[in-house]
């Protein structure tokens, strides 16, 4: 099955996939590295930031096009390709500048061979567990009724070029689906399908999990790095636990683990498994006890705004969920730090969510 799949995808398409899903986010993330202290410039953080920035840019650019032009998918493709190129180019230029100035782009990391034997074994176990999940994602299909809307919507967008004016269920023309149209994630999938020439359903069900599942674990890894910074040798144990909790987390159809491994390609899953963990990652980082310089804090606040825009892209209702989470965390951290400006800043970060919430309620 795996060999057949890779046989189906030509070299140019493979190249475009690598470009769109790996290199462009990494290149874009390099741009945010300028804000980070040298010790925090990891490949993981760069990739996560880049991925989120590109998604946020897509959401900001696409929603107005959806409202203004029923047949606007081609415009979306052209505009976003310019944005991706620009962001990636700026990121790479920025990293050249950093390299010349500081002699490094990413921080030095401990090589695998320099780690303790136990740690090495644990990392291998963790990678095997991840490998199993990716293998199962490619070779096994999971049925979910919502795909009849979301996946069919990506497909009709890519093939017909309409934006939320065709019923994914039947194919008949319809009025703008205002409620769903505020969350542009299915259109992003259509964009990747157009750029790579891969059928949107194959992309959703078989290829995107190979990127989105590792992305989730990368965020959990960064959270673990912050939580276990005094005993980083236990990080692989933590990651094994995270993996096992996901694999054995199918306690109901609603759990985030079920969404991660059975509905990976849906915006709701991205909300539960990328956006919300990313908020925890940013908060842990932002209020680390040894503190950051103001430049780095500024970068993290920007990233928090970015995550809020991405939340709106995943599911329109998620704007309430995200605002709620930030409100609770904002109040508690402000009380703890005895600094109410934190709550104010968090409220400002929620502005994109508020705007989308107002639009959502208005419809």
């Amino acid at each position, binding site marked *: 099955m795996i060999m057949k799949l890779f046989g189906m995808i030509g070299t140019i398409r493979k190249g475009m996939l690598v470009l769109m899903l790996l290199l462009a986010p990494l290149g874009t993330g390099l741009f945010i590295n300028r804000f980070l202290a040298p010790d925090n410039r990891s490949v993981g953080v760069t990739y996560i930031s880049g991925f989120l920035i590109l998604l946020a840019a897509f959401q900001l650019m696409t929603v107005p096009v959806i409202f203004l032009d029923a047949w606007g998918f081609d415009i979306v493709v052209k505009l976003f390709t310019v944005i991706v190129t620009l962001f990636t180019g700026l990121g790479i230029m920025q990293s050249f500048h950093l390299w010349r100035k500081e002699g490094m782009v990413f921080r030095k990391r401990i090589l695998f061979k320099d780690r303790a034997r136990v740690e090495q074994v644990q990392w291998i176990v963790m990678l095997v567990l991840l490998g199993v999940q990716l293998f199962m994602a490619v070779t096994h299909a999971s049925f979910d009724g919502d795909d009849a809307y979301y996946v069919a919507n990506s497909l009709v967008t890519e093939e017909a070029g309409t934006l939320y004016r065709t019923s994914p269920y*039947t194919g008949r023309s319809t009025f703008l689906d205002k409620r769903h149209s505020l969350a542009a994630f299915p259109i992003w999938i259509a964009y990747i399908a157009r750029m790579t020439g891969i059928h949107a359903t194959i992309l959703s069900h078989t290829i995107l999990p190979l990127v989105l599942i590792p992305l989730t674990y990368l965020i959990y890894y960064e959270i673990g790095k912050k939580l276990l910074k005094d005993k980083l040798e236990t990080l692989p144990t933590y990651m094994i636990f995270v993996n096992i909790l996901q694999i054995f987390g199918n306690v109901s159809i609603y759990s985030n683990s079920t969404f991660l491994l059975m509905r990976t390609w849906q915006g709701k899953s991205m909300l539960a498994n990328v956006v919300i963990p990313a908020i925890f990652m940013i908060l842990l980082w932002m209020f680390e006890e040894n503190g950051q310089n103001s430049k780095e804090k500024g970068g993290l606040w920007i990233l928090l705004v970015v995550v809020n825009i991405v939340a709106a892209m995943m599911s329109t209702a998620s704007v309430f969920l995200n605002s709620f989470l930030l409100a609770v965390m904002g109040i508690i951290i402000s009380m703890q730090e005895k600094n109410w400006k934190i709550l104010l800043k968090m409220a400002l970060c929620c502005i994109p969510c508020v705007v989308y919430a107002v639009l959502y309620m208005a419809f």
Partner: protein
Amino acid sequence: MKEILTIFRNYTGNGFLTILYILALLYLWMAEKNKTPRAIFVYGASVIQILFFIPLFYYGYQLLDEGTYYRILWVLPMTVTIAYTAVKILGRYPMGSIVIGLGVIMICGKYVYSNTYISKAENAYHIPQEVIEVCDFMMPEEGEERVKGVFPDELIHFVRQYSSDILMPYGRDYLAPDWIYGDHPLREVMNQEKIRISELVSLATEMECQYIIVERKKELIGNFDNYQVIRIGETENYDIYRNHRVDIEKK
């Protein structure tokens, strides 16, 4: 309150992982010394849980977005809390204790790949191969407009995930039992124990369906040949008919 408890029970399933989470949270209440993890994973998470069970909060949320209250539980960092606590506690003991810890999670949880909705993929689309075979009989030729077909219920979810060139008179919106669309007249006919062909062709023609797909084991009353409807293909379980009363338009 009853609704909230039902949502909570539906989310947590057998409840054992939730018990592990509560135990982990209690441990962190006592043992977590770092202020930011304490704020987020102890105080924040506790406040979210309390709010979740407050009826006024529930009704407020319902006003904003009905039917998705379970998602409040997504913002509880259960996975991180359990994993972090496990490492904090078991990290002090020999490797064997970690294996036991993982075993406890495996026993408390449910293996995702044993889910009845997961099956071996038949193709890269991850939709039933038979749907592809059926649709391939119907695909419009070069220069032809999109076509419309009426399908048995079990195929409806997948048809438009395979091709947007195939339209349907009704879709998944008529299958979900809790949605309030009522039934579609053509679906009523398709789901009859014995399908009356005259009725089926008449409605399919009225709804401009060029194709009719019927499960072979269905009992039919009448003969398609009498209505300009010709069988053009078959798969393991389905017959594909071309309804010549409706033309396929040229682009």
